[in-house]
């Protein structure tokens, strides 16, 4: 790794000055190693190639910018789903607001308790996938997370539970700076649905490491919203064993600065990973989806579907890469990123990349940026649908193609309803 430049070092020193490394316990070692990695990398800077489209400033500065707490009486998403609810307020587990951490087939602990309880799998996972994900591209904010996160869950799925685990984030303080780190291990043939929603803090740095054993499945559905002044960086590192399935979908609305990174690694044959996202940005909104998929096994399928609707100067970014190593024959890799620009002020910046070292693969990628289709709009209007409603209908149809990636129709419908309501409110 290159010796970090002075600015990156200075930024790091300033940031570290306000942080305290949790001491002792069995996570002491991975934390110190993460800090060493971070020190070597420095914090991301504007001129870093990987941050070319997204300014890291507000994500790395020592103190977060204050963010108002969202308030309205709308029922949060997933409320009607039968689930095990676990609440974090400003990045701290709230046992009062949470259900008991009991779910058949699953063991759930706080990462703070891992050492006392001697949970081996967790020790072998914490920081491990994050560290693997640092090559070939550095992800300093993930290393920072591994080093300094004090809270988060260790979720061990040995058998398929009867309901999803739903992580609910609550933003209570206008200056909270939350760092959360979850680790999830899905054992062979087990299946988990993980839901996430709610504004987490004024600034949020979240990292999830997901290790899926042979034949295991993880469905992840996340809704980011209800916090207009959100500044968040999230990383999901997933490692897929043979025949395993990983499906992740994120809906993002509002938020001034959001960067969601997905780092997927296929280590076993015949596995499948779908990562998708739909986002809606109006005004002061910057949303970055950065995806890196590494195929290192035979006959795996990866699919990236990202859709962004942007207006009033909103900015959307997509950086997606499919890396197919030499031994990853029969890889099926697909990537599409599309934006719908509702006016001339908004911007979509896309950097799709394919890097292929195997000869027997089928990989394709595409990226488009366009306005509402005039023919369709006129057709709808000629049937009496007012322009505004017709635009919303077409916008929703555009996003629905990404929402369709969610396997559970009930969850998909829940999110589509949100989108529809949001569009109706905003137009």
């Amino acid at each position, binding site marked *: 790794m290159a010796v970090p430049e002075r600015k990156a070092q200075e930024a790091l020193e300033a940031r570290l000055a306000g942080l305290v490394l949790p001491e002792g316990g069995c996570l002491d070692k991975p934390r110190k190693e993460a800090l060493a990695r971070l020190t070597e990398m420095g914090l991301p800077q504007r001129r870093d190639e990987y941050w070319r489209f997204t300014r890291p400033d507000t994500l790395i500065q020592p103190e977060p910018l204050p963010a108002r707490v969202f308030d309205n009486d709308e029922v949060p998403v997933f409320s009607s789903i039968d689930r095990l609810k676990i609440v974090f307020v400003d990045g701290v587990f709230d046992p009062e607001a949470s259900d008991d951490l009991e779910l058949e087939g699953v063991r759930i602990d706080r990462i703070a308790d891992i050492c006392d309880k001697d949970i081996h799998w967790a020790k072998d996972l914490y920081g491990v996938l994050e560290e693997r994900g640092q090559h070939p591209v550095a992800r300093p904010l993930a290393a920072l997370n591994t080093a300094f996160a004090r809270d988060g869950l260790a979720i061990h799925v040995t058998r398929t539970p009867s309901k999803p685990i739903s992580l609910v984030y609550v933003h209570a303080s206008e200056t909270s700076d939350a760092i959360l780190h979850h680790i999830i291990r899905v054992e062979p043939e087990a299946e988990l649905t993980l839901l996430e929603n709610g504004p987490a803090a004024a600034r949020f740095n979240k990292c999830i490491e997901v290790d899926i054993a042979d034949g295991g499945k993880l469905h992840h559905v996340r809704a980011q919203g209800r916090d207009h002044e959100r500044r968040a960086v999230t990383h999901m590192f997933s490692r897929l064993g043979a025949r395993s399935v990983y499906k992740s979908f994120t809906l993002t609305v509002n938020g001034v600065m959001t960067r969601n990174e997905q780092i997927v690694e296929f280590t076993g044959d015949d596995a499948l990973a779908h990562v998708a996202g739909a986002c809606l940005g109006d005004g002061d909104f910057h949303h970055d989806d950065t995806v890196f998929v590494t195929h290192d096994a035979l006959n795996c399928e990866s699919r990236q579907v990202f859709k962004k609707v942007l207006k009033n100067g909103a900015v959307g970014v997509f950086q997606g890469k499919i890396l197919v190593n030499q031994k990853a024959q029969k890889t099926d890799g697909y990537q599409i990123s599309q934006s719908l620009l509702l006016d001339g002020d908004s911007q979509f910046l896309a950097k799709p990349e394919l890097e292929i070292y195997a000869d027997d693969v089928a990989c394709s990628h595409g990226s488009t940026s366009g306005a509402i289709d005039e023919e369709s709009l006129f057709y709808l209007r*000629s049937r009496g649908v*007012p322009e505004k409603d017709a635009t919303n209908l077409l916008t929703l149809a555009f996003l629905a193609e990404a929402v369709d990636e969610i396997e559970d129709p009930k969850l998909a419908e829940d999110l589509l309803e949100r989108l529809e309501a949001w569009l109706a409110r905003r137009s």
Partner: protein
Amino acid sequence: MLEIKNLHVQLEEEDKQILKGVDLTVEPGTVHAIMGPNGSGKSTLSYVLAGRDGYEVTEGTATLDGESLLDMEPEERAAAGLFLAFQYPVEIPGVGNMTFLRTAVNAQRKARGEEELSAADFLKLVRERAKALKIDADMLKRPVNVGFSGGEKKRNEILQMAMLEPKMCILDETDSGLDVDAMKLVSDGVNALRDAGRGFLVITHYQRLLDHIKPDVVHIMAKGRIIKTGGPELALEVETNGYADILNEVA
């Protein structure tokens, strides 16, 4: 009901005159047919009436029940009772046909200050009307016109018309691409809507459609103008002799 006077239209993008003084009046309860060579301006007339972008009216008027259509947004024209069955119906991926129909029906009702149809009433109505046009449940579920055959698209246009019950219906070559049976279905659909308060303007190239939908008046359009108007026999004349005689006669 529909009154078009001296309508001159050119393209917005280029200085090209397409309609050069169209005069046409459709009274309630009547069916008018327009025939005419390719490129004579028939579709342009229907688009201008429906309010499509890209055309500039340089002269003339078009009113529906006395109200100027040309000043209205497309959706207002629809709410006022104008309907155009497109020559080339548009495919809209991601929008279900049913959602589309319900949105359209309720939008028009709302615009007219009527109550929206309940989900149950709407469903009942759409099933009944779709059945008459042999449009199956699958076609109702699929995205609007996506993957529909040419004939299916045309039947879908008539379904929309049947659901919206417009006052003034313009059909632009709804017969093209239809097989014999579909032609009958579509014509029956149109005839079912015929009543004393409703007017039709049927654009077609073929007498066959007019065998089913008997017109009261037939117009011949050429080079952006109505050059001849007559009874149903005019269509038969075109069918046997083509346009040459009529064009010569007028020239």
